[in-house]
C-alpha cells in the first residue's frame, strides 16, 4: 500500500468532522451584503490571539493571518458582519440609526452565522468571526443571540478559530461574562472621546452608563476570565468637532485605566441618508496620524509630555510624521549611534525598536563609521540623517531645523 493510499484510507475511515458538510443552501445574498456593509467601518486588524494550544478545530494563530486585501488595501481576515442592522439609537453618522433614511432591515439566526463562518473557514477564506450588531428590539435579546451563535461554533463544532464579539451598549454584566468566556476579543465602541462629544454624535446613548460601565465590567471580569486578545475600542474621528488632543487624552485613559489592548480610529465619512450627511468628511490622513501617535505611546513607550510636541496650538496633529516633530523638540544636537542608548535611538525618525536593537548588536563588534552601515540594518538614512552624527559628520538639513 502506498503512503497516499494509506492516507486516503485513514481519512475515509475518520469519523471526526467538526466542520460538517457545506450547507449548499442558497443564502440571501442581499442580507450578506447589507449586514457585511454595516461593519466595513469597524476595525479589527489582527486575528492573532495568544492562548494555550487547545484540542479541536484549529486554533487562532499568534501572528494572525491576512487572507486577502480589498481593493482599498484593507486586510480581510475575518467574516465581519452585523447580526442585525435594526437599531433604535440615533447616531448621526450611522446608516443603521433610527433617524437615517430607512432601509430594509435584516437579521441572521445563530445557525446562519455559524454555518457561514464554518463554510468560509473550511475554504480558508477567513481566520475567524467578527460579530457586531445594531441593537435590534432589545440589546440583551440581540446579545443573547450573538452569544448563541458563538456558542454553537465553540461547542457544537469545536471551533477554535478567532472570535471578536462586540458588546452592545447597555448589555448586562452576565452577557458580558458569557461573551468573554467564548471570545478571543471583545470590544465596546466608544465612538466619541467624551460624554459631551457623545451627546453630539448619539444623543440616545449614555456615555458613562452604556459605554464606560461596560468597559469596566470587561476590565474587572478579565481578572478571572482568560480573554486572549483582550479588550479594544473604536472612535469616530472628525464627526463632532473633537480635537486630536481630546482623542489622545481619551486613548491614554483607555490604555492606562481600563487596560485596553488597542484603540482604533475610523475617520468620519458622511453617508447619504444619515443625519450627518451634510457634514464635512474628515481627511483620511488624520486616522493615520492618530495611529502613529498610538504607536509611539504603546510600542515606543514615549511619555505623554514628549508626544504633546506633535500637536499644534489648537490640539490637532499636522499631516506629517509626528515622530519628526517630537524628535525636533527632543534633540538638542545630533546623536552618535555608537554611544546612544536604546531609548535615544528609537526617538530618531527612521529608527524603530528592531533597528535600534540591531544597532546595539552591531556595536558590540565594530564601530559605526558610515551611514551605509546603518542603512544595511534597516535605518532610513534620509529621515534619520539629520538627527545622527556618523563618523564625525552629520547631515544638517532644513528638514532638521525647519519649522
Amino acid at each position, binding site marked *: 500500500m502506498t503512503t497516499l493510499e494509506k492516507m486516503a484510507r485513514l481519512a475515509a475511515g475518520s469519523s471526526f468532522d467538526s466542520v460538517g458538510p457545506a450547507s449548499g443552501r442558497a443564502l440571501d445574498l442581499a442580507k450578506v451584503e447589507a449586514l457585511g456593509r454595516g461593519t466595513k467601518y469597524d476595525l479589527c486588524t489582527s486575528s492573532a490571539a495568544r492562548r494555550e494550544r487547545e484540542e479541536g478545530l484549529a486554533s487562532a494563530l499568534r501572528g494572525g493571518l491576512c487572507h486577502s486585501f480589498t481593493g482599498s488595501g484593507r486586510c480581510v481576515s475575518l467574516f465581519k458582519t452585523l447580526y442585525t442592522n435594526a437599531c433604535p439609537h440615533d447616531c448621526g453618522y450611522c446608516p443603521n440609526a433610527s433617524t437615517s433614511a430607512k432601509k430594509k432591515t435584516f437579521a441572521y439566526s445563530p445557525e446562519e452565522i455559524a454555518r457561514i463562518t464554518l463554510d468560509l473557514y473550511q475554504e480558508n477564506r477567513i481566520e475567524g468571526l467578527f460579530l457586531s450588531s445594531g441593537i435590534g428590539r432589545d440589546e440583551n435579546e440581540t446579545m443573547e443571540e450573538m452569544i448563541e451563535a458563538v456558542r454553537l461554533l465553540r461547542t457544537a463544532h469545536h471551533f477554535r478559530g478567532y472570535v471578536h464579539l462586540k458588546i452592545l451598549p447597555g448589555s448586562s454584566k452576565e452577557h458580558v461574562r458569557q461573551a468573554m468566556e467564548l471570545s478571543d476579543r471583545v470590544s465596546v465602541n466608544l465612538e466619541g472621546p467624551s460624554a459631551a462629544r457623545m451627546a453630539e454624535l448619539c444623543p440616545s446613548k449614555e456615555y458613562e452608563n452604556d459605554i464606560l460601565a461596560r468597559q469596566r465590567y470587561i476590565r474587572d471580569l478579565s481578572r478571572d476570565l482568560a480573554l486572549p486578545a483582550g479588550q479594544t475600542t473604536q472612535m469616530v474621528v472628525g464627526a463632532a468637532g473633537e480635537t486630536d488632543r481630546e482623542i489622545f487624552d481619551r486613548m491614554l485613559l483607555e490604555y492606562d485605566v481600563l487596560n485596553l489592548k488597542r484603540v482604533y480610529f475610523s475617520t468620519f465619512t458622511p453617508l447619504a441618508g444619515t443625519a450627518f450627511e451634510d457634514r464635512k468628511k474628515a481627511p483620511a490622513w488624520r486616522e493615520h496620524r492618530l495611529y502613529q501617535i498610538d504607536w509611539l505611546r504603546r510600542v515606543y513607550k514615549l511619555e505623554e509630555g514628549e508626544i504633546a510636541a506633535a500637536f499644534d496650538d489648537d490640539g490637532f496633529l499636522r499631516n506629517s510624521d509626528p515622530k519628526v516633530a517630537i524628535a525636533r523638540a527632543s534633540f538638542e544636537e545630533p546623536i552618535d549611534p555608537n554611544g546612544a542608548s536604546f531609548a535615544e535611538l528609537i526617538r530618531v525618525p527612521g529608527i524603530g525598536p528592531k533597528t535600534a536593537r540591531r544597532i546595539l548588536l*552591531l556595536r558590540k563588534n565594530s564601530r559605526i563609521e558610515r551611514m551605509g552601515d546603518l542603512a544595511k540594518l534597516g535605518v532610513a538614512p534620509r529621515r534619520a540623517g539629520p538627527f545622527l552624527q556618523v563618523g564625525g559628520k552629520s547631515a544638517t538639513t532644513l528638514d532638521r531645523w525647519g519649522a
Partner: protein
Amino acid sequence: MRTGELLRRLAAHRDSNHRLMARARTLSPEEVEGSTDPEVLRIRRMALAVRGEVCRMRGLVRLAPLGDRVLWGRISPHHDVGFEVADFSARRFPGKLIVLGDGRRSWSSLYSEGALLHQEGGGLAATLAEISGIMDLSAQGGEEEEEEGRQGSEEKGGKDQAETKVEPQHIGAEEGAGTAAADLWTVYYQSQDVPRKAGGRRYGGRISRRALRSAGLDAEKGGGSAKLQDFI
C-alpha cells in the same frame, strides 16, 4: 530568528546551497540580526523570503472539498514550502486529507491521531484522481492543471492563472457547494471595500502578482466568479 528556524528556512530557499548552509550553521541569532556582512545579509533575506512565502500561502490558498474527507487547493510556491503549508491546514482539519499543488507537483498531508503523514506527488490532478479512485469518488478536476504542467510552469509561460485554475465546481462530488460559498464570499468581500481610504496601496501593491497567481484568488483579483456563460 533562531538557528533551527534559520537553517530550515534557508534549506527551503530555491537558491540555497551547501556553502550558505555551512555559513549559516556558524551564525548566532545575534549575528544574523545585527551583522552588515553581505553574505549574512543575504542569508537573512533568503530566510525571510521563505518565511514570507509560507505566511502568504497559508493565508491565500483556497481550499475546495473533494467528497467530504479531502480538501484541495492550488499553490505554486517559489520555494520548497509545500508541506509546511499543507501541514498547517492538516492540523486545522484533523482527519481530512489536504492536497495542495499545481500542474507539476503536489503535497498531501493528513493529521491523524496526533501524527502527520506526508506524500509528495506529481501534478495535482493526477494525485486527486488517484485519491478519488481509492475513495471511490468521481474526480473531474485538475485536467487543466495537468495540461498546464505539461506546457511548463506558469512563471515561464506567463499564462494567466485565472484561465487555467481548477474550479471547485469541476469536482463532481461537491458540485454546487463550492459555488455557493464562492458567491457568498464575493458578495461579502465587496461589501468590505472602502475606496476613499485607499491611500495608494492597492491590493496588488501588497501581494506580488506571482503570489496572486499562485493562490488562484478570484474575487480579490477583481474578476469575481463570473464566467463566459454569465454574459450570454
